[in-house]
């Protein structure tokens, strides 16, 4: 059996059903082996989209996503997607072709040191030296990608190794890995802090979904009655409509969430990492709070904020162990009152489409089981603020790297994970152009993805910052020469239509939901529509700016 066949067989043994990729010279032996495999290969139109689709597939399904590309530019085009998975701890295995070992280090055609290039953005990587080690490398790659704190793993496969005939016995026992439980001592001290606290807040991040600890979080929150705030990636860990959910915290968080954190005397950080977008100015963050930090990754404990009670280990065990009633009723009532007095106002003046209102209506129509893949920018924050989620796997968003162009490929990945699900890509006129070529992938596979493209003829978030923090000195944010996106979509085989006025919103949503194939709604919004509230650069979360007339 050839090395390429070993690889494909090993992937099958890992349960891989879908690979997102793009062929080329050095990876050709693997594409040849794929012909005889039950694994489905999805041909994207740019390798970055392959990596991001694998990321979206993994986020939505909880399985390891797999992408593949050839050597040189094929491999380097994967890098942004690999970095995206690294920053958001998403289990992805990226397979790259490499020039033959005899040519490595000679600056051969399409040779690049992808192993070296990706070192800072992978959890681990392998350069395959012999065909016989391929099955074990694949098994290790999958184990590493999904164990502990998940992340991307690279397998770089030289072409001669892929073509080498070798022997291997596939029945060898496989290694398994369990995440350690928290220590009794750490749980005991955390319980002590919880009992002593009068104003605790649960600060929930993406780790809860990754640890599949949704039920345990619900048990912890409903038993303790601790109010909950979520990071961008933590949204949906507790249903966003749950009574105790105060909303997203941080730069574009809700007032109730940020004020609760700032007033708290105990922060129970659950699978989050004190990211600067969540904390604002770090030395002004939760100034009165002690910290209990629950995380599977010991490297996150006290990395940015000292944790009085570190609890390292499996979140499911930790949350179950900490679920005990607390005497915090006055604080609970205060937090819920803050939430009630700061509800969103959807009555914007004018007749133009108001994006928050559009998204609220779309969320209500799409129901609780839809999956939303966002791009990056203002629309991303509006989705976080106004869409309702009952699971973090419903909300695919590039939190750490902030990758414009993430949304459409991620939606493609999610649709392959759940072919019958309603998958929506919310994008902007800047982001959509980053992976617009994937309209062709939607058409090729007739994916019924619903694209909501908010078009303000600008790089909206950058424009907003220039308006608010750079004295309206606008620099390279004008996109008024955008193409007609509805026509572009039509030319690539998608149904499409344009929405100019608020009065058209309900029928637009009807059209979107009724579409059986890929569809794009080109939604025109005001160029100066901003995301509110906002915590300015260098400010603490106590200093939120409300909508201002500028």
């Amino acid at each position, binding site marked *: 059996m050839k090395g390429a066949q070993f690889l494909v067989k090993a992937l099958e043994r890992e349960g891989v059903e879908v690979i997102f990729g793009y062929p080329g010279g050095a990876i050709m032996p693997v594409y040849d082996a794929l012909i005889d495999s039950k694994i489905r290969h999805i041909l994207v139109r740019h390798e970055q989209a392959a990596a991001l689709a694998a990321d979206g597939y993994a986020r939505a399904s909880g399985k390891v996503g797999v992408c593949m590309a050839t050597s040189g530019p094929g491999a380097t085009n994967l890098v942004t997607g690999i970095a995206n998975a690294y920053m958001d701890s998403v289990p992805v295995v990226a397979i790259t072709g490499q020039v033959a070992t005899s040519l490595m280090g000679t600056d051969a055609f399409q040779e690049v040191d992808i192993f070296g290039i990706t070192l800072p953005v992978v959890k681990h990587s392998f350069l395959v030296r012999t065909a016989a080690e391929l099955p074990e490398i694949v098994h290790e790659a999958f184990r590493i990608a999904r164990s502990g704190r998940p992340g991307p793993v690279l397998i770089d496969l030289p072409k001669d190794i892929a073509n080498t005939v070798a022997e291997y016995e596939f029945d060898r026992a496989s290694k398994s890995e369990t995440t350690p439980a928290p220590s009794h001592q750490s749980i005991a001290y955390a319980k002590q802090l919880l009992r002593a606290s009068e104003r605790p807040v649960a600060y929930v991040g993406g780790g809860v979904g990754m640890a599949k600890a949704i039920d345990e979080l619900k048990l912890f929150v409903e038993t303790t009655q601790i109010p909950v705030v979520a990071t961008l990636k933590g949204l949906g860990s507790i249903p966003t409509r749950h009574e105790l959910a105060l909303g997203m915290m941080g730069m574009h968080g809700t007032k109730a969430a940020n004020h609760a954190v700032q007033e708290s005397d105990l922060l129970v950080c659950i699978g989050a990492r004190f990211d600067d977008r969540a904390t604002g100015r770090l030395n002004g963050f939760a100034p009165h709070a002690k910290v209990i930090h629950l995380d599977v990754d010991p*490297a996150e404990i006290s990395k940015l904020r000292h944790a009085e009670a570190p609890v390292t280990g499996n979140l499911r065990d930790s949350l179950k162990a900490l679920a005990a009633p607390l005497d915090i009723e006055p604080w609970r009532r205060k937090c819920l009152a803050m939430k009630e007095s700061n509800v969103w106002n959807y009555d914007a003046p004018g007749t133009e489409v108001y994006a928050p209102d559009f998204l609220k209506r779309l969320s209500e129509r799409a129901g609780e089981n839809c999956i939303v893949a966002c791009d990056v920018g203002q629309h991303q924050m509006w989705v976080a603020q106004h869409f309702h989620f009952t699971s973090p796997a419903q909300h695919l968003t590039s939190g750490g790297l902030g990758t414009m162009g993430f949304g459409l490929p991620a939606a493609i990945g999610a649709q392959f994970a759940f072919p019958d699900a309603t998958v929506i890509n919310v994008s902007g006129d800047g982001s959509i152009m980053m992976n617009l070529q994937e309209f062709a992938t939607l058409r090729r596979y007739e994916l019924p993805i619903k694209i909501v493209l908010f078009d303000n003829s600008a790089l909206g978030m950058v424009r907003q910052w220039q308006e608010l923090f750079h004295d309206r000195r606008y620099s390279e944010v004008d996109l008024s020469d955008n193409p007609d996106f509805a026509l572009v979509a039509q030319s690539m085989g998608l149904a499409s239509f344009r929405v100019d006025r608020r009065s058209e919103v309900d029928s637009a949503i009807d059209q979107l939901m009724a579409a059986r194939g890929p569809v794009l709604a080109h939604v025109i919004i005001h160029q100066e529509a901003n995301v509110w509230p906002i915590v300015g650069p260098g400010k603490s979360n106590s200093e939120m700016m409300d909508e201002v007339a500028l």
Partner: protein
Amino acid sequence: MSILKLQMRVRHAEGALVRVLSVTRRRRFDLLHLAADATPDGAFLDVQMTVQAERAGHTLISQLAKLEDVSEVEILEPTDAERGVQLAGQGA
């Protein structure tokens, strides 16, 4: 600025030492000294490394410890000479 002296056992695998140095640089620790010797069976490298940084040493230790190729990492006490460098760096 504090000085940190580390002893590590690292799997003798493709890029393992580069990975250690990459994490050290990316986490903003400056390298002052590095020595690496293969174990007799060639399976591991015993690495001694001295670094300095304004950041707390545990932030580097925990990042190194989670590398797949690092099987052991421990902090060694700085020598008197290194303490002298540390004090000089602080303007003492």
